[in-house]
């Protein structure tokens, strides 16, 4: 059971995530969009969306630091466990709070604005349930366990397990020793990643960072892709 949950499931989720993204990109580029609903409603979105996005991007950064960077590295930089804990809890709470407030606003907006609710798909609903659950458990961990409770050094177990998955030597026993709420958070997150490619969340992978470096005016030649189809046999261009 333990090895199913902490060895088989992560790979299943990861496969679903990667293959799903590949599939979606190949087969449904047209559906690959943030599907903005700002035209319908702007008052709530103007607060909810930036709050949520800046929050979740901060949270994402926190997860990278917490899960990917081994404890030994930060210790070597002279950061004690207590110091790290303090930093993680404070920044985590701020970004987490922004995320939660933003998400609540977004969900309320989706439900209460008739035009927005009308274009909410089943996948949107599933995505919000999963995303909400992951965030809720994450907040429980940071506020109840880390801040109010005694705290748990997840970098000694959860983070090591997380990295072990990517070395293809998953160590299920490590997760066993983590508090149940951490286990649930990790499990839900796996579910979210499995669902990811089939929701609007694919827009995250199109974050337009390239915009900062490209020339303003884009020219494209009609010939370069005048046809979306590869030339049929016998119609190839000269020299190709």
């Amino acid at each position: 059971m333990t090895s199913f949950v902490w060895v088989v499931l992560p790979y299943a989720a990861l496969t679903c995530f990667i293959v799903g993204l590949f599939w979606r990109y190949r087969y449904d580029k047209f559906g690959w969009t943030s599907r903005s609903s700002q035209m319908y409603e702007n008052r709530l979105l103007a607060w909810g969306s930036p709050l949520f996005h800046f929050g979740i991007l901060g949270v994402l950064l926190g997860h990278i630091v917490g899960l990917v960077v081994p404890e030994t590295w930060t210790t070597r930089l002279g950061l004690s466990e207590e110091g790290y804990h303090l930093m993680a809890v404070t920044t985590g709470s701020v970004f987490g709070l922004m995320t939660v407030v933003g998400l609540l606003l977004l969900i309320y907006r989706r439900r209460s604005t008739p035009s927005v609710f009308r274009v909410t798909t089943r996948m949107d609903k599933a995505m919000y349930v999963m995303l909400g659950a992951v965030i809720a458990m994450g907040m429980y961990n940071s506020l109840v366990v880390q801040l109010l409770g005694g705290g748990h050094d997840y970098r000694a177990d959860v983070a090591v397990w997380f990295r072990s998955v990517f070395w293809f030597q998953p160590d299920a026993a490590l997760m066993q020793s983590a508090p149940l709420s951490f286990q649930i958070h990790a499990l839900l997150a796996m579910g979210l990643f499995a669902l990811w490619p089939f929701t609007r969340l694919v827009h995250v992978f199109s974050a337009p960072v390239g915009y900062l470096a490209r020339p303003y005016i884009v020219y494209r030649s009609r010939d370069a892709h005048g046809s979306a189809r590869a030339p049929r046999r016998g119609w190839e261009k000269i020299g190709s």
Partner: protein
Amino acid sequence: MRVMAQMGMVMNLDKCIGCHTCSVTCKQAWTNRTGVEYVWFNNVETRPGLGYPRLHEDQEKWGGGWVRTSRGKLKLRAGGRIKRLSRIFSNPKLPGLKDYYEPWTYEYDTLLNAPAGDDVPVARPKSLITGLPMQIRWSANWDDDLGGAPEYAPQDPIVKKLGDLVKLEFEKTFMFHLPRICEHCLNPACVASCPSGAIYKRAEDGIVLVDQDGCRGWRMCVSGCPYKKVYFNHRTGKAEKCTFCYPRVEAGLPTVCAETCVGRLRYIGLFLYDADAVLAAASVEDEHDLLEAQRSVILDPDDPTVIAAARAEGIAEDWIEAAQKSPVYALTNRYRIALPLHPEYRTMPMVWYIPPLSPVVDAVSSTGADGEDKDTLFAAIDQLRIPVEYLAEVFTAGDPAPVENSLRILAAMRSYMRRINLGDERDESIAAAVGMTGQTIEELYRLLAIAKYEDRYVIPAAHVEAGRALDEIAGCSLDFDGGPGMGGMGVFGEASGTPASVETFQLTKQRAEADRYDDLPESRGAVDLLTWSGGEAPPGMFPPRRSAEQDEPPTEEE
């Protein structure tokens, strides 16, 4: 010098009767789909008026187009790249649906299904956005023909700018119709605003298109365009815009809006321009110099050095010839009577307008004076400040001189031609008064008044191998029925059909099916992802279903 070719259009506003035929035919061709109900790639506004979307000219509010910084550089009015990216999560300058209008239908069912009785059944309006009953309070043309002008016209940003001048004399009212399409700018702000680089200018003919597969729904282009001619398809989550009817233009046919124009007032042809000079021209300091800068970017197609440079860039002979015969070049640069729309946005718009003389003629005639006499008209152009200054705000960043010049040429043409019609001898002095000769006036008259189809539209066909050309024509949305976006919403959002408005995505269902027959023998079992439009399973992916409903569109989801 880097010579590029650009499709351009000129509209002769004196002839526009505001019939909206162009808008309707364009809509039938391109935007009669779910998600773009509110979209008019071509719209006709009455000026003075609010326009569509409402008050779109108020760049203080919408932040569209470019501005020149104090250091002489061009910058998008909405700010630098980082500033704009930081606002991607909620675009503060995005017009809401209400700024266009909330599209609606009527509950026609109640007319048909009402039980017999004394009450006359009514079809109540129902929003196409919320599905709920609604009050109709605004549309794309609510202030048509100055309807409601006492309330709306004073809000017109130009009327406001001209201030008391207009308020005082509003009784002596004037109006004209302004048909607007995308300007297919040389320095397009929409392209520059797109974070994913999905909007592009075609290198061959300068048509600005949205790659529907590349658009990620960041909706920065909508606010970036100062003319508000990029629209957001609120169901597919992708931007769409006027395509200059590229499938028709590639085949040498005029755009739908031009072809169907009742006033026959549109001209389509090629410009050759110097792409290297665009940025400098768009950055000149004085806004009043923008018109001349824009004209100077356009090259003389009869100049041997230009021809040589065009050849060196690989522009084909028949395109160079078409540029020489181009009616739009003649009107903008040879006769210099066509003016760009709002050059102060610094996008170098390529749809030009001949300003209307009719407000002046009407004013003159209403006083009982001779509306065809040169001196009377010239005097009126000088004295009737309102039409001239209003037109100047629209076409020349407020500089009345070029507008006066265009109007004087039109006035001179009027009185010169009247003498001919009446059998009097030609009066060269009339032509000389506007720096022309009688001969050029007659040429201009022929172009403006009696030009035949092939003189108004000089459109060289695109150069492609035969097979490709057929591809493009088959991709025209005109023959695409059951259209995209009409299949309702799938689990991922709007059904992933797409308009043919899109270069990489022109493969319509029909074509995919035709291909299946052609390709099956050699490619059995192989899945051709490139011909798949994203909605149903691609051909060959799964064994054929036995049921007959295989091609039924996805049903509407609640």
